[in-house]
């Protein structure tokens, strides 16, 4: 039962580190750092949403940012119309989930193959991007909220304590909220994956036909997984809209979708902690290289290094070619090899399926 103990040890470690970060950061770090960490936590929730549906469910979704953006926009629009954040927050989860369910119904009940699934989800994202991008005119508004097209929606009111609009959540509160939400999401997903449902979706990823012949309907399970992933991404989007008080269509963009995929690939499919590490690591790297700032320097090399798409592109190609399993599973393999000495035994019960 040492695998079980190792498992519990890992869970405890994640919990302790998470709580430590949550407790210590606001006390010892500058506000800037707290703000940066807040967005890392929010993005890590987004990474977990894809870790679930792709890493465990085997559903190749290239458009996770669609649900993220939808959550952010839903929150912003509902907030301008209602002024109190409880319902907008719920809507920002429910609406993306419903959209995921609708899209998922078309894809899974239409028995569309993996590759087409990737392209369809990507296309949906792009169409959302194009559609929202072109709503700059004043005629595009939903209630009191102007959509703003490529200019985005500025000045989004922050979340408040449930049903109490006079108690908005401040920046530090956002940090606690985001970190707490990330921890809850992580442990919630661990529970989900340990449940019968979680084991069945892994079984379906491993061998869909066999699962079917045992009496499980893969379509329904995939649809449920996809919908949960959409809800989580929408929730992350809502937090993101809060973090910057601003949303713009780039949130739907190809670059955003690619980032989520890269976090999961770098961290490793078939793990939860991997994508979280991948997400935080890559965002930190991007920030360290100054990639997200508009490059003021005209020097060619600084343009290259301060160039987010270029760096992300190189990372993606390098991982697909050289470390296709991702960091955490690869490190796990190495660790296991060391433990087992030279005994030839590949482990990892939940290794991701080989792409066909």
């Amino acid at each position, binding site marked *: 039962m040492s695998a079980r103990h190792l498992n519990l040890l890992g869970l405890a470690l994640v919990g302790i580190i998470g709580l430590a970060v949550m407790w210590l950061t606001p006390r010892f770090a500058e506000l800037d750092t707290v703000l940066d960490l807040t967005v890392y936590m929010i993005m890590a929730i987004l990474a977990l949403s894809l870790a679930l549906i792709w890493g465990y469910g085997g559903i190749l979704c290239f458009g996770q940012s669609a649900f993220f953006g939808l959550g952010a926009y839903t929150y912003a629009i509902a907030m301008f119309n209602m002024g109190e954040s409880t319902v907008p927050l719920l809507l920002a989860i429910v609406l993306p989930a419903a959209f995921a369910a609708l899209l998922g119904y078309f894809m899974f009940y239409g028995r569309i193959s993996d590759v087409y699934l990737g392209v369809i989800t990507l296309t949906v994202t792009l169409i959302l991007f194009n559609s929202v991008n072109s709503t700059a005119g004043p005629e595009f508004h939903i209630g009191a909220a102007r959509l703003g097209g490529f200019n985005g929606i500025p000045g989004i009111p922050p979340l408040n304590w449930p049903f109490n609009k006079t108690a908005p959540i401040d920046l530090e509160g956002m940090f606690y909220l985001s970190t707490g939400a990330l921890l809850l999401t992580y442990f919630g997903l661990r529970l989900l994956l340990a449940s019968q449902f979680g084991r069945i979706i892994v*079984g379906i990823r491993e*061998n869909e*036909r066999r699962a*079917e*012949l*045992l009496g*499980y309907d893969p379509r329904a399970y995939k649809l449920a997984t996809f919908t949960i992933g959409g809800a989580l991404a929408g929730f992350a989007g809502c937090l993101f809209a809060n973090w910057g008080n601003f949303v713009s269509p780039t949130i739907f963009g190809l670059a955003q979708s690619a980032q989520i995929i890269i976090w999961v690939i770098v961290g490793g499919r078939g793990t939860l902690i991997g994508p979280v590490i991948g997400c935080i690591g890559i965002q930190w790297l991007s920030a360290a290289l100054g990639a997200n700032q508009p490059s003021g320097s005209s020097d060619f090399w600084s343009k290259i290094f301060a160039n987010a798409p270029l760096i992300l592109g190189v990372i993606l190609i390098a991982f697909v070619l050289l470390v296709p399993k991702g960091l955490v599973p690869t490190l796990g393999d190495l660790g296991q090899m060391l433990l087992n000495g030279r005994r030839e*035994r590949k482990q990892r019960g939940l290794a991701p*399926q080989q792409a066909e």
Partner: protein
Amino acid sequence: MAEPLLQTRDLSMHFGGVKAVNDVNFTLAQGELRCLIGPNGAGKSTFFKMLTGQLEPTRGEVLFRGNDISHAHAHTIARMGIGIKTQVPSVFDGLSVRENIWLAASRLNSRERARRLVDEMLARIGLTQAADRIVGQLAHGQRQWVELGLVLATDPELILLDEPAAGMTHEEVQKTAELVREINRTKALIVVEHDMQFIRMIAKQVTVFNRGSILVEDSVENILRNPLVRDIYLGKQAAA
């Protein structure tokens, strides 16, 4: 006479112009064990796929306990009580033996009962020692056992076995025959097999498929003596 467990009426599967299965009328009684034999390409596997909802018949119907299942989904048919062990073992290669069996057992049982059932099943298929090994790394014969365990753990009323003895050693074949007879005490089975020794060990009635249709149906002894069968099937095997 009681209602048959399984019945097909004019069951046909045509791929383009190829009649893989053509107008098959087949009846299986409750609790019966039937062997299907026939040369490669006679339509046995296609027949199995139609019975389990993996292929939708071009024409005709499949009745299971009197219900038409010819257009039902594979998972619905599985839930009604038909299990299949496919020709090439179809298992969850990335999971351990225990996890494999658990997936099958947990559909019908509570967590506790499923766990107990898994242990029983592991003992029954003789893989208790290998319970935590990844199925993809087991030998072919052992993967066959895992698949059989999966099927048994869902407790179906009718079990289809597609070449259960293929690629097994003589000892394993005997063990399989024993298990099949044991299973037959509570369940009906249809077994596709080429190994005549194996068939002699388990079967009473044999159905011979040829070119997508039923050629003849008779007892094992008569089938073995039937010159027609020898021509299309046994003769070919003897020559090979």
